[in-house]
């Protein structure tokens, strides 16, 4: 028995055999924010063979309250999250192979990285990327574990191609304009609870104990003390375009992805959400943004100027969004996901 993993091996469902499986498997974590940092640390301590981390962002001081792998120095130096995570993880467990990608988790990159992954762990902050993960998982027959949180509320579901419903079965359209961590906040216990569910399910997959998988959508509110666990097998759609027999994987096609363009000479980026997204409700958005900055609205558009920021956002009724004050598409998308969700 390896001393390092002895307590995990004493746990009967894992044992020596399970530990050996964990030691030679690969997990791909998409996103290295709060969820990604926590699940990465957990898996690296558990002795995962290889961890691949994708994140496009860098560490900021407002991350430190809950993104457990990062330190003040990372924020001061604006170290990319995937790199900062790799450095800290490697000092926790030098035996684990860690591969970091400072990049957008787009179709092209995920199509390569999925090939060697045994499990995909969702730690993103937006549904556009989740719908891509959902289609990639189906196309390459790889399980993925949805996890998300906001405020004191969290949710998780394990999606097994060919068995469970997929995210496209469960959602009619891509949700837009919901609450985000940047509008209604987040407390770290919520992150930990989601990650606890995700990593427990990941370990079951890694030791090939499929019978132990939870098979329900789990959601909870840590402030209101409630916990739901719902059987959703009946929600599997036989004609689903992502997991049905005639799947077309719609979110892997160019016309179903968010389009972005830098507007020349205007210090502005235009974002056009995918047509499958549902319409942003400007009145609802206006209510939600009112305490965060200056909101002006007319029948055609809403303009939002957050307090203490130079960037400004204009949202049109056709879902088109202009982010003024930047020429950087990554930065613009980041602000979009922070504000719109």
């Amino acid at each position, binding site marked *: 028995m390896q001393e390092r993993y002895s307590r995990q091996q004493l746990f009967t469902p894992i044992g020596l055999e399970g530990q050996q499986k964990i030691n030679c498997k690969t997990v791909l974590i998409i*996103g290295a924010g709060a969820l990604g940092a926590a699940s990465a640390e957990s898996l690296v301590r558990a002795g995962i063979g290889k961890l691949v981390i994708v994140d496009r962002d860098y560490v900021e001081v407002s991350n430190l309250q809950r993104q457990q792998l990062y330190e003040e120095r990372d924020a001061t130096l604006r170290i990319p999250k995937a790199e900062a995570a790799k450095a800290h993880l490697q000092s926790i467990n030098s035996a684990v192979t860690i591969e970091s990608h400072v990049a957008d988790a787009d179709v092209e990159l995920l199509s390569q990285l999925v090939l060697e992954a045994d499990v995909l762990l969702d730690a993103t902050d937006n549904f556009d990327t989740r719908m891509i993960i959902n289609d990639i998982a189906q196309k390459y027959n790889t399980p993925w574990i949805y996890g998300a949180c906001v405020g004191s509320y969290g*949710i998780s579901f394990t999606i097994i191609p060919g068995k469970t419903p997929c995210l496209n079965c469960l959602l*009619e359209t891509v949700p837009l304009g919901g609450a985000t961590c940047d509008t209604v906040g*987040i407390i770290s216990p919520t992150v930990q609870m989601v990650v606890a569910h995700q990593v427990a399910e990941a370990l079951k997959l890694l030791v090939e104990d499929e019978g132990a998988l939870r098979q329900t959508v789990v959601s909870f509110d840590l402030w209101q003390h409630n*916990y*739901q666990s719902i059987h*959703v097998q009946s929600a599997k759609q036989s004609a689903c375009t992502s997991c049905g027999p005639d799947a077309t994987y719609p979110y892997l096609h160019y016309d179903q992805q968010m389009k972005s363009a830098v507007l020349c000479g205007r210090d502005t980026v235009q974002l056009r959400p995918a047509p499958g997204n549902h319409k942003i409700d400007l009145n609802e958005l206006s209510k939600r943004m009112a305490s965060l900055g200056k909101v002006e609205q007319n029948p055609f558009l809403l303009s939002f100027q957050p307090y203490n920021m130079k960037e400004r956002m204009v949202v049109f009724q056709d879902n088109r969004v202009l982010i003024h004050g930047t020429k950087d598409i990554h930065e613009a998308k980041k602000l979009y996901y922070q504000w719109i969700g």
Partner: protein
Amino acid sequence: MMIHVNGCQTNVPSDVRTMEQLMHYYELQAKSMIVELNKAIVNKDKYASTSLQNGDCIEFVHFVGGG
């Protein structure tokens, strides 16, 4: 009418008679949710035609995007 919503016993106004009205009462976005009534999932196109009875147990699960 007395019902259980996400584990909490709740008294809702008498004009809330269907699942759709209940979701409206709580200002819930129908599209990004799963709704369970007495342990069975309610299809999204059945919210308006699903009537509620005293003592029903309803679970709302929101799909959120944060992380």
